[in-house]
């Protein structure tokens, strides 16, 4: 049986410092995050755990799932000196590669991911407001939830999924590639023009995704150069004998909640099916990297993709096949690994969206980002008689992702929501209850002054009268409210907690 598909999203946001000639993206990102941290500390409205920094002890992004890193591959660098906070909702908020980045807490299902992704937007919005208070008049920090600047520079929205170590990696590559290439028809956030070398806006006036232009390899370790469709980073942040963490770098950041929900929900189901060796048919593309771009450039969704066995299939056909298998899988294995009822909700929504894409994609303008954006781009071009390379269309593309309520285009479209405003607000400071993020978040809420550092799989306590104590959390599905609420209720101080953990019988 597949292990629980515990998952998380890390989003690198675009940032602009307006009203100054002297902008530096790293300084701007630091200011943005520090403004938020001090604002929340001042108002006491939950959020960050004051004074607790990220613990880099177990960061090994250079490890390769395939065992040894191929010669010439670039191991990602870790920047340990930049602002790096842990929030009481279990998330990490930090500066990475000259961008503000927020990693959601570990979630057990796609609906929770959607909720924490929404909470991340709210955190970035509050950060912009807090920074505006500190900056000179006329200056502002503006945050964009997109993946490209339109000039060939891309930054990512990565997904992570817990996988059983025993799953053959070759199977993850085959089925993962088939899904990541074809899911673009509903995960794409849309983009005006192309940033692939040699292609102009005349050839690609609009495409489904922000990211497809930037993928050059099928499998590999890199994330910033020569990006691979399947990333091999082997850094499980959990018991490495039992687990790996599949690090998916091939997706877009979504404004639409339905798109985020499906992006993570369908991928979790496909990976569960891979783990249970359930998929009978392999869709191997003849040229996966080209297939990825072809899907992104084909607004008709009708062009067949060439397969290695000499046959062909469209992205929609492959998605219908995966959905069909998912229904059978639900019947034979159940969906406990992907959140039970939420898994069922994913399958139903998956079918609705595929049916909608087949009938008339434009009917999904309230569900999918690329459709919503494309409708506006077409509308604006028609209204003002604009050519495809007119700056106003590029501006509209950018502003679709602007997180300022007064400027955001996505906020005006009337996109369907899956998460109530109240639930999203609560998720700013409250951790999910059914993963180890609960234990992390609760400890930070209660005992931040006694915590020196935290990371995905441990918390380091300093209770004064003994050496620093690291509490490991190597099992992502433990540390839930069910597991630890009673224990936490029994402890008044962090020292009590450490005593109880050392000797479970002590009270």
């Amino acid at each position, binding site marked *: 049986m597949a292990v629980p598909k515990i998952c998380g999203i890390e989003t690198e946001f675009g940032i602009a410092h307006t009203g100054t000639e002297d902008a530096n993206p790293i300084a701007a990102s630091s200011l943005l995050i520090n403004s938020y941290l001090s604002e929340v500390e001042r108002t006491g409205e939950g959020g960050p755990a004051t004074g607790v920094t990220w613990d880099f002890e177990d960061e090994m992004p250079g490890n390769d799932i395939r065992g040894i890193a191929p010669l010439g591959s670039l191991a990602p660098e870790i920047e340990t000196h930049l602002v790096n906070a842990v929030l009481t909702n279990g998330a990490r908020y930090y500066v990475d590669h000259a961008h503000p980045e927020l990693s959601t807490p570990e979630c057990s299902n796609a609906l929770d991911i959607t909720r924490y992704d929404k909470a991340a937007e709210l955190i970035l919005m509050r950060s912009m407001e807090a920074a505006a208070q500190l900056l000179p008049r006329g200056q502002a920090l503006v945050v964009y939830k997109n993946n490209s600047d339109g000039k060939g520079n891309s930054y990512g929205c990565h997904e992570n999924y817990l996988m059983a170590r025993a799953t053959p990696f070759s199977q993850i590559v085959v089925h993962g590639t088939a899904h990541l290439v074809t899911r673009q028809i509903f995960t794409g956030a849309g983009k005006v023009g192309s940033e692939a070398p040699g292609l102009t806006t005349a050839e690609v006036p609009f495409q489904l995704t922000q990211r497809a232009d930037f993928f050059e390899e099928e499998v590999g370790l890199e*994330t910033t150069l020569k990006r691979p469709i399947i990333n091999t980073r082997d850094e499980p942040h959990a018991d490495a004998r039992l687990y790996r963490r599949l690090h998916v770098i091939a997706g877009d950041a979504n404004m639409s909640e339905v798109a985020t929900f499906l992006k993570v929900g369908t991928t979790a189901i496909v990976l569960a099916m891979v783990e249970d060796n359930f998929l009978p048919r392999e869709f191997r593309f003849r040229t996966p990297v080209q297939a990825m771009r072809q899907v992104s450039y084909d607004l008709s969704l009708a062009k067949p993709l060439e397969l290695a066995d000499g046959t062909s299939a469209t992205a929609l056909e492959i998605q219908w096949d995966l959905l069909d298998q998912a229904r059978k899988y639900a019947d034979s294995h159940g969906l406990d690994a992907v959140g039970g009822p939420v898994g069922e909700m994913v399958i139903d929504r998956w079918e609705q969206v595929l049916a909608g894409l087949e009938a008339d994609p434009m009917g999904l303008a309230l569900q999918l980002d690329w459709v919503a954006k494309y*409708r506006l781009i077409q509308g604006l071009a028609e209204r003002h008689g604009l050519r495809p390379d007119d700056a106003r269309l590029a501006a509209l593309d950018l502003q679709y992702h602007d997180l300022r309520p007064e*400027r955001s285009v996505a906020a005006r479209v009337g996109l369907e929501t899956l998460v109530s405003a109240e639930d999203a607000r609560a998720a700013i400071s409250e951790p999910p209850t059914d993963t180890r993020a609960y234990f992390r978040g609760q400890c930070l809420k209660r005992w931040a002054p006694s915590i020196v550092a935290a990371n995905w799989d441990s918390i380091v306590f300093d209770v004064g009268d003994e050496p620093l104590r690291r509490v490991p959390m190597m099992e992502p599905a433990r540390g839930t409210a069910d597991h630890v609420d009673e224990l936490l209720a029994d402890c008044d101080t962090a020292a009590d907690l450490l005593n109880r953990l050392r000797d479970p019988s002590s009270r």
Partner: protein
Amino acid sequence: MAEREQIKKPAPQREQSEVEEAPEVSEQGQELKAELDELLDEIDEVLESNAEDFVKSYIQKGGQ
């Protein structure tokens, strides 16, 4: 938990359109067009006034 409520909630748009009597195709088309026009009016207002400069100045360092 909050998720429970949301799971039961069906997609709102679809329900509505099923309940309403199906309008003539042309009428529906006109409605959609009017809605889009209204949205474009709003977008014309919020769009950065100097689109060229705005687009040109949006430069990011590459990331992951």
